[in-house]
């Protein structure tokens, strides 16, 4: 009798613990599953000569969760509004290509052990959160990488990546501003397109 009572309490306690542990912000869950999937791909397929396969798989995994239009708008800054929808679309396309190339180059050339996703501190109702992660590498210092994410009502998407306190959007913005000032939106599109067409440097 005493034993069953004790067991019931223990079970109830365990159930509570499980439900507490299982709860996490939806953005946090998304980052957790996505980084896990990417790591699995890297660990399984990342071998010399296999770069393209890895790149395609990682890209397919990550693409749905990046808001490239918003990122491009933030990078271009005040000139974004004066750009035509067609210009905006081609800017976004070039920016997206650049980001995907870089990101997959970094991923395929870095030895990542595992990625820790920290609990999101923002309230559950918030539609704009920072998901903090730490990328642990073997034989090198760990890198904190934070994802600034927002919900558009149905999907959570990343609109800035902050590595060791450095925002990629802020850095890009500074890189683009001079070209936009000097040669306008069309000049920027041309510059980006030519950069993207360059043969990729071997990492």
């Amino acid at each position, binding site marked *: 009798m005493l034993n069953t009572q004790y067991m019931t309490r223990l079970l109830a306690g365990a159930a509570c613990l499980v439900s507490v542990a299982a709860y996490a912000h939806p953005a946090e869950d998304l980052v957790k599953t996505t980084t896990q999937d990417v790591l699995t791909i890297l660990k399984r397929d990342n071998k010399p000569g296999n770069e393209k396969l890895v790149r395609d798989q990682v890209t397919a995994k990550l693409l749905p969760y990046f808001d490239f239009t918003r990122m491009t708008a933030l990078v271009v800054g005040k000139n974004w509004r004066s750009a035509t929808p067609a210009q905006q679309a081609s800017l976004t396309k070039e920016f997206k290509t*650049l980001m995907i190339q870089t990101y997959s180059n*970094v991923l395929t050339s870095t030895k990542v052990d595992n990625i820790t996703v920290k609990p999101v501190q923002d309230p559950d109702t918030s539609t704009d959160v920072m998901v903090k992660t730490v990328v642990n590498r073997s034989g090198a210092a760990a890198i904190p990488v934070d994802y600034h994410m927002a919900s558009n009502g149905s999907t959570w998407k990343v609109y800035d990546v902050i*590595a060791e306190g*450095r925002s990629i959007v802020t*850095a*890009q913005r500074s890189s683009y501003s001079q070209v936009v000032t000097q040669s306008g939106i069309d000049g920027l599109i041309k510059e980006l397109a030519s950069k993207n067409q360059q043969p990729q440097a071997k990492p």
Partner: protein
Amino acid sequence: MRRLLPVTLCCSFLLAGCATPENQGDPLEGLNRQVYRFNSAVDKAALKPLAQGYAAVVPRPARTGVHNFFNNIGDIFVSLNNLLQGHPDQTASDLGRIVINSTVGVVGLVDVASKVGLEKHDADFGQTLGKWGLGSGPYLVLPFFGSTTLRDSSDIVANIALYQHISPEASTRDKINPVRVLDARAQLLGVDSLLESSGPDEYAFVRSTYLQGRQNKIIGQVEPAPLEDDPGPTPEAPASEVTP
């Protein structure tokens, strides 16, 4: 170093006024860009290939040992700066690291301290001066040393003084320093491919990431101010998602 630091300090105060938001804290941009080009050329022609060779030839455990060795020497300044920044607990931990790693860890080759829970901290003179309220001064790109600011160049000066103190014979330093440079560059292999995403102006991209990183270390993570041009989250299935 005792003589150099006040000089650096005075210069910083004098030049801090030159860094304005209009020139992104970079009044010497013209000169800096030239030095940046020089450094990139040196890196491409010599430093990066050498670091790649080093990473390919020397097995990982040996490279880790080398990295730990220099980290252990670096902990001397980490502990001092933690003290100057008012973190005596971290100073104690840093001193503990030096003692353990220099003895049990065989002159610093093995980072035993991290394994027993004394984690490596990050503190330097630039951070200390920043936390004391000193502005960064102008952004500088120094030949071979790369991105710094007038304030943060105090670390370069301090480290030269430290190594001069540790090994007074120039011949020993001539053997140590190349390995130190190789180790530092090899640490960046892989991560440096991020530069390919620098967009149209690599110099401005590097300057922004350097200054952001320093600011983050000195006043903590800065939430970027909401941008006035932010269109907000893109609604589902916008035009740009039709074809990649």
